């Protein structure tokens, strides 16, 4: 069974190998002649004016991340149900409806309380 995952392993090996090889070769072979204009920020923003250490993200990201996590876990339970639903019949459907119903209330609640509105 584990042999099924051999391609995945190969992919990892190839990916890491490629990164390591290209970084390594360019570090070994590439010439390094830095000058101030090469080292300046180039088309990707300005030099930071102030110390940025103290800035914080909006706490809304936390709510979004929590919600993502919770519905991620929900999905984990939906998979096994979806695969066995033919055998489980209406019983499984009822149990899943209860489970999703309670989570649906949580979802409605978060939307209703403005957890996902950005302003």
């Amino acid at each position, binding site marked *: *069974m*584990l042999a099924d*995952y051999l391609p995945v392993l190969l992919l990892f090996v190839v990916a890491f190998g490629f990164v390591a090889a290209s970084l390594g070769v360019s570090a070994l072979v590439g010439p390094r002649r830095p000058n101030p204009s090469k080292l300046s920020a180039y088309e990707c923003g300005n030099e930071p004016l102030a110390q940025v*250490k*103290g*800035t*914080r*993200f*909006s*706490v*809304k*990201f*936390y*709510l979004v*991340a*929590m*919600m*993502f*996590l*919770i519905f*991620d*876990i*929900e*999905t*984990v*339970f939906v*998979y*096994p*149900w979806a*695969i*066995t639903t033919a*055998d*489980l019949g209406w*019983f*499984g459907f009822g*149990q899943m409806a*209860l*489970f*999703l119903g*309670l*989570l649906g*209330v*949580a979802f409605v*609640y*978060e939307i209703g*309380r*403005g*957890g996902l*509105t950005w*302003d």
Partner: protein
Amino acid sequence: MTSLDIVFILVAVVTGGAAVMTVTSRNLVHAALFLGVTLAGIGATFLLLAADFVAMVQVVVYLGAITVLFLFGLMLTRAPIGRETLDSRNRPMAMVVSAALFGILVVLIVRAFGSNQFPATEPISSSVADLGMAIFSTWVFPFEVVSMMLLAALVGAVLLARRQSGDSGTETRVTPIREALDDSTEELDRAPAELGSGGER
């Protein structure tokens, strides 16, 4: 030593090393990324134990969501994201305690198995369908309680993260001035949400 053992040792070394780096790294973001590697390594371990579905769950939930939550958490707080040292003077103490705990548990568990060696069998593959049948027969009640736990987590997150006007803890008005208005939840809810304005008010 089978090829499975070799792969396991490789995975274990990477996972263990990343776990050590997680707690010793002085840069919080690096620590969170090492945590991601640790969790991925645990996922690989599940795979080696022929638990494909659990491995997938590990990747989707832990690697995909928990690590992200950690990174968000770092950015939400004024945690020093740079190279500041986070050590307290408890560091040597913590090292001694955790090393002792680790040592004791390892010795105890290894010795506990002692003569009771479990026969080395090929890992038995359990399909997602088997898992589904198990969840919806033997474990159907805990499954329903899980939804209650998730509900509590989400409602709790809303309470903690949603800022409302008039938030206060110790500083309280002696008498609620506008009793009727103050008593209605909507009025509080309609107040401009000041999520993430950053500063203390």
